[in-house]
């Protein structure tokens, strides 16, 4: 399409960030950009793609007969193979963690990279590995390009100057915005418009009542939450309104906002947040699911509350608020009809008055009308549904078994709730006389297919169905579950595969509307009809409109920012004097020891050895930024080696708690203290998190502060460094390293495997004799060496006598080890499975 060509042309101007509106086909732009580079003459790396997307791009490019089909580089490739791949050129999809290591090890020829493309550019912040990679790349390569693509405009306006920050990370000089209201886009999409029929469905009276009370409950809960956590009001207020509850990412956003103070949030407030999530779930369930599912969900929550004791009673407090009564009675009425005094015993299935969702009959009407309309070929009718559960139900409904399905669900619900109540169960079985198991039911009218079916059998079924379809005049109906289409390309791919003429959007969704517009624009010959279903005056409508508005506002804000944006000359970092690339850490903090150190220039290259697993965190990047070189290796002991005698084990607060509880930290400290004279435990909090261990404890039973005390008592040599955030950690490491000799990689690698047992044999894949030995009962860190000295191999250990083992490691441990080795497994019952020893015996004989 025209705007895609324009996007490709734009990129020739220099490094850029491209933001498209949702559904406009960011994947197609990526594809056309990639097409340019599938040649051995250059090397283009693509970051931040998911495996499914890589697969899609590769497949599409393969179909286009490009000169060189791109490859995905994953951990399966050995360093040597990767090096060869880099030299071959073309397009490579590569995981950031691998690339950063390859660049640091100089295994990747940075100067030969002709460009890097970053997909999902909205995910990039200064604190990501991708930003680190780009910095390393720019430092050594001044000519290549960097392009970022994204279709998530609203995530660029969350914070002040956020788009500017992202552009800085991408070294992007240009910002290209492609909103839906862009003249070119508008022009193309308006040329051929699909025939859109908006269908506003009214909610039933009960549903309206339920929706009202749920919104009321959310409002009340939010008010309470605000009272409980006053600090919440200091956050972005707009995020905490009823309206924001309707947006998709609400639960995460509230968690994110509170994350910094999460440890200080009381139990009550936490349960309130949980309640909000529950209420929101109910709200969606109301509009999406049938009355029985909704009722059983509600009942389940109620029974949870009934079963909890008074001490835990803070859960689901909303159930005791006033609107909850209306909610529950309305939900009950939807299942049992208006009769107020139905008790469970008297209900039979035939008496149940199950309310149908208003949309169902409308959908059936649409389909029957649409299948009556003449179409040139038997294209399927695509019904796009939000979730699998709805899709499942609709499948039954369209086959004319809606009520049976509801009764099934009802029966399941009653079954799970009164599992013990035999009497009622039998009554139900008796009253369900005409129950036919699903697989024996005769298939009626429309052949309905779910997405899974049409994806898995795609081509094959297509061929099989087409000849049979003309016989029956009705085209087949395809139910598509949107939850299965997570990535931008999947919806477009599906449309291309099925080529529908009629699409029913059962739930309103912005991205799909755009996808369909694009689909129509690409295929002007197809007369597309879109039925757009929406509950009138409902949360669904509000949610759709607000998502539309938010995107528009985001783009307007971006356009405004773009007009005011000041982009420095050296933004692309091609100038050697680029300030952003500078690794001089002389920040605003006056350095205390500068006079001792003398100038930085006199120093030789400073170096820190970092364990490869640490590259998940941002600290290595920050250390690198301070002018210290990073050397990634696989370390057995410690995470960072600052000098020959200084070794740091970094722990985020959550990790610290976890590893103190699991005992891992004890082992790590033992190892560090053995090999280094200055072992350091660096406790690193996240931004805004407190370093206070007392309040970080999630379950009250775990005394983390006490465990830390115990740790320091047993490792008096261990130094503890407390850092408020990664930035401080980097600065501290820099200062600690000052004037210390450089560490040696060979020595650091040798630490922890001086017995040549850990990695000596590559074929063992890491599990060494030492590992195995330490797992045996009675073998401890303090005594395993004495065992190793005495035995020739593990099988030798197995044949030692009890007496001999005791003589090596002592009475108690020795007995434990010997008994373990010589215990007959057949006479020890397997815990939890309740298998008798006898049955095990017969097993063996068979």
């Amino acid at each position, binding site marked *: 399409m025209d705007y895609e060509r324009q996007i490709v042309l734009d990129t020739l101007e220099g490094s850029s960030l491209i933001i498209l509106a949702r559904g406009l086909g960011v994947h197609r732009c990526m594809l056309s950009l990639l097409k340019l580079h599938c040649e051995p003459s250059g090397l283009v790396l693509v970051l931040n793609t998911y495996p499914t997307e890589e697969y899609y791009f590769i497949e599409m490019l393969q179909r286009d007969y490009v000169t060189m089909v791109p490859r995905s580089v994953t951990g399966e490739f050995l360093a040597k193979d990767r090096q060869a791949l880099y030299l071959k050129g073309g397009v490579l999809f590569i995981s950031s963690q691998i690339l950063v290591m390859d660049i640091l090890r100089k295994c990747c020829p940075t100067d030969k990279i002709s460009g890097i493309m970053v997909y999902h550019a909205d995910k990039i912040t200064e604190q990501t590995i991708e930003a680190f990679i780009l910095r390393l790349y720019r430092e050594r390569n001044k000519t290549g390009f960097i392009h970022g693509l994204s279709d998530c405009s609203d995530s660029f306006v969350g914070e002040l100057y956020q788009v500017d920050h992202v552009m800085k990370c991408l070294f992007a000089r240009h910002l290209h915005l492609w909103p839906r209201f862009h003249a070119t886009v508008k022009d193309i999409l308006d040329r051929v418009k699909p025939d859109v029929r908006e269908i506003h469905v009214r909610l039933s009276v009960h549903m309206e009542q339920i929706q009202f009370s749920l919104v009321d409950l959310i409002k009340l809960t939010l008010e309470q939450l605000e009272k409980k956590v006053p600090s919440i009001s200091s956050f972005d207020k707009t995020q905490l309104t009823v309206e924001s509850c309707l947006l998709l990412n609400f639960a995460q956003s509230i968690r994110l906002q509170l994350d910094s103070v999460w440890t200080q949030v009381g139990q009550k407030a936490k349960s309130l947040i949980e309640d909000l999530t529950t209420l929101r779930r109910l709200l969606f369930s109301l509009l999406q699911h049938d009355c029985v599912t909704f009722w059983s969900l509600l009942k389940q929550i109620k029974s949870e509350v009934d079963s909890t004791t008074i001490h835990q009673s803070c859960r689901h407090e909303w159930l005791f608020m006033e609107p909850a009564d209306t909610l529950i009675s309305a939900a009950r009425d939807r299942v049992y009809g208006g009769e107020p005094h139905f008790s469970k015993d008297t209900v039979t299935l035939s008496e149940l008055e199950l309310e149908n969702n208003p949309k169902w009959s409308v959908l059936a009407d649409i389909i029957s009308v649409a299948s009556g309309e003449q179409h040139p070929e038997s294209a399927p009718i695509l019904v796009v549904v939000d979730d699998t559960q709805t899709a499942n139900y609709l499948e039954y409904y369209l086959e004319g078994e809606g009520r049976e399905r509801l009764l099934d669900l009802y029966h399941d619900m009653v079954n799970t709730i009164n599992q013990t109540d035999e009497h009622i169960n039998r009554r139900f079985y008796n009253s369900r006389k005409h129950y036919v198991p699903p697989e024996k039911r005769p298939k009626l009218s429309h052949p309905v297919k779910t997405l899974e079916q049409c994806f898995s059998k795609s081509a094959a079924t297509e061929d099989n169905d087409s000849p049979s379809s003309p016989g029956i005049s009705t085209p087949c109906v395809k139910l598509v579950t949107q939850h299965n289409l997570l990535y931008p390309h999947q919806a477009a791919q599906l449309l291309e595969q099925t080529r529908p003429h009629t699409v029913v959007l059962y739930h309103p969704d912005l991205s799909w509307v755009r996808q369909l517009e694009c689909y129509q624009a690409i295929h002007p010959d197809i007369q597309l009809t879109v039925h757009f279903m929406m509950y009138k005056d409902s949360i669904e409508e509000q949610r759709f409109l607000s998502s539309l508005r938010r995107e528009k506002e985001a783009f307007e804000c971006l356009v405004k920012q773009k007009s005011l944006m000041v982009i420095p000359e050296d933004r692309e970092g091609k100038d050697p004097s680029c300030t952003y690339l500078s690794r001089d850490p002389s920040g605003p903090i006056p350095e205390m020891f500068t006079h001792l150190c003398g100038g930085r220039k006199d120093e030789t290259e400073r170096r820190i050895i970092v364990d490869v697993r640490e590259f998940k965190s941002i600290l290595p990047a920050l250390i690198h930024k301070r002018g210290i070189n990073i050397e990634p290796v696989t370390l057995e002991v410690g995470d960072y080696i600052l000098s020959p005698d200084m070794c740091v084990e970094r722990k985020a607060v959550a990790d610290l708690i976890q590893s103190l509880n699991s005992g891992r930290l004890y082992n790590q400290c033992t190892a560090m203290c053995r090999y280094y004279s200055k072992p350091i435990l660096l406790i690193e909090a996240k931004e805004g998190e407190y370093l206070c261990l007392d309040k970080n404890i999630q379950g009250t039973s775990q005394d983390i502060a006490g465990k830390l005390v115990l740790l320091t008592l047993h490792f008096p040599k261990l130094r503890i460094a407390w850092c408020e955030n990664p930035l401080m950690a980097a600065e501290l490491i820099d200062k600690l390293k000052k004037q210390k000799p450089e560490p040696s990689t060979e020595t650091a690698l040798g630490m922890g495997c001086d017995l040549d047992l850990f990695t000596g044999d590559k074929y063992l894949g890491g599990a060494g004799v030492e590992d195995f030995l330490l797992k045996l009962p009675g073998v401890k860190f303090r005594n395993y060496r004495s065992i190793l000295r005495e035995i020739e191999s593990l099988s030798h250990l*197995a044949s030692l006598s009890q007496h001999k083992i005791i003589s090596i490691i002592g009475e108690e441990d020795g007995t434990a080890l010997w008994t373990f080795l010589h215990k007959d497994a057949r006479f020890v019952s397997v815990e939890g499975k309740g298998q008798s020893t006898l049955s095990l015996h017969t097993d063996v004989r068979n």
Partner: protein
Amino acid sequence: MAKLSTEVSTRSSRLLIHPCQRKNPLIPHIRDTPWEVSDVCPDFEVGERSCVLFLSVRYHSLHPEYIHERIGQEGMQKYNLKVLLVLIDMTNVKDILMELTQTVMRSDLTLVLSYGNSEAAKYIETYKRYEHKPPGLIMEKAETDFHKRAGECLTSVKSVNSTDSQTLLRHFGKMERVMKASKTELLACPGLGPTKATRLHTLFNKRITRKA
């Protein structure tokens, strides 16, 4: 004589507090540990060879030289574990924290932070209470169930899963026999392919080499 010995024993079971700490607001929070003011060198003596020095960040920002004097005292030498308990009673302590960290590295102290008097008191009490406590609480908990334990051992070998480990145990009966089995014997187990069998066999029969 007998009286003297009881005196000694009570003395060692008590938390000893330096006279200058008598007015420290954290003292009222020490409730569960008997303590007495004594003429010790550090602020708190929590064990025969372990002690705690207390420092408030606010005080330190006014008198930065104080803590260095305290650390440098000769009486501090005899302690094996010297804890610097820092009370964070100011905001924006990053620079002070950084400087203190460097100080503790140079003078071999262990830095512990607390955000309130009660928390600080709790640390001191815990140090006293855990004086002789073995590290069991923070060590890896050994699985006591035989099957699980054996499973843990065998699955530490790459690609051997828990089903394999159960099969092995059922087939051979004892760990000892699994470890002594030949490659053919291992291969006879259902589900064990040549890769797994070779890995296990190599592990069990690898000759242990010692560095000279």
